[in-house]
């Protein structure tokens, strides 16, 4: 629901970082975690709308979903934590240390100078 706000933040951040206005952004890569997961479709829609009228217009948006890392306290297995099926894939126990969830990150952009 707040994808629109996230999109505006992305555009704002890009506009403050691109080296010159003499070109356009063709690709934008962002990443998110599991708790702050973005809905891809809503995000693409919001990004397109926010990019309108800026040098980001028409840029392709790539959204990476970073898994949440966990380590089983019983058998030591490291695995990607599934919010919906939180279970050790090796021993089946559900007592583990969970790592930190990835933040919403603007990773990189591809800029085309004309």
């Amino acid at each position: 629901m707040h994808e629109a706000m996230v999109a505006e933040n992305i555009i704002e951040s890009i506009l403050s970082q691109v080296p010159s206005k003499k070109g356009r952004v063709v690709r934008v890569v962002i990443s998110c975690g599991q708790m702050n997961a973005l809905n891809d479709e809503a995000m693409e829609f919001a990004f397109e709308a926010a990019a309108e009228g800026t040098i980001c217009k028409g840029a392709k948006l790539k959204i990476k979903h970073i898994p949440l890392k966990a380590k089983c306290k019983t058998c030591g297995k490291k695995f990607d934590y599934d919010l919906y099926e939180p279970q050790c894939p090796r021993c089946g126990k559900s007592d583990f240390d969970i790592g930190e969830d990835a933040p919403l990150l603007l990773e990189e952009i591809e800029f085309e100078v004309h």
Partner: protein
Amino acid sequence: MRIKIEQKILAKNEDFASANRKYFKRNNILCINMISSPGSGKTTILEQTAKALKNKLNIAVIEGDLYTEYDADRIRKTGLQAVQIETKGACHLSAEQITKAFHKLDAEKLDVLVIENVGNLVCPSDFDLGELRRVVVLSTAEGDDKCAKYPGSFAQADVLLINKMDIAKHVDFKISKAKRDARKLNKQLKIFEISAKTTAGMDKWFNWLLKSCKELRK
């Protein structure tokens, strides 16, 4: 040309949030971010909390709603200070709004600041307000499957208040299912079953508040 940026998208919100958190810690103010769907009973819980604890704790409330001062007015009637934030359609509160609203309160001798977030189980959970504790409210009328369906809100909370227990049996709410799903997402979660209407079960919540304030002052 590829340009690495590696910048947090919500960096501005996070800057405000960490400044808020620093302030609350330094001044021993237990700031609580209260999250739930609309109508789960947040304001009613706060009214009851005010009644029960206002002689023991100095509590203030920041109310977040899309429109109206209704909730702040309800809180003021109990004798507590309240500031209303109208988001004018935005689905969550931001840390900057909290910084601004907090300035309108008399913070002298404040023990607890409760922020009643905009009714919404999805968006507020992504926006750190600088709170020291997060409380999520689920009412029985919403159904016992909501913990599993909105994992972000439940996984990142310290306390889950299951409200409207007085009508649980009429709406086929299976408390064991809700609790099991919530615990799967969050092992440390404290769960209290309450009715803000009858106040049944609310003692545990009041004690948790008192205890958390005491811990903060240590």
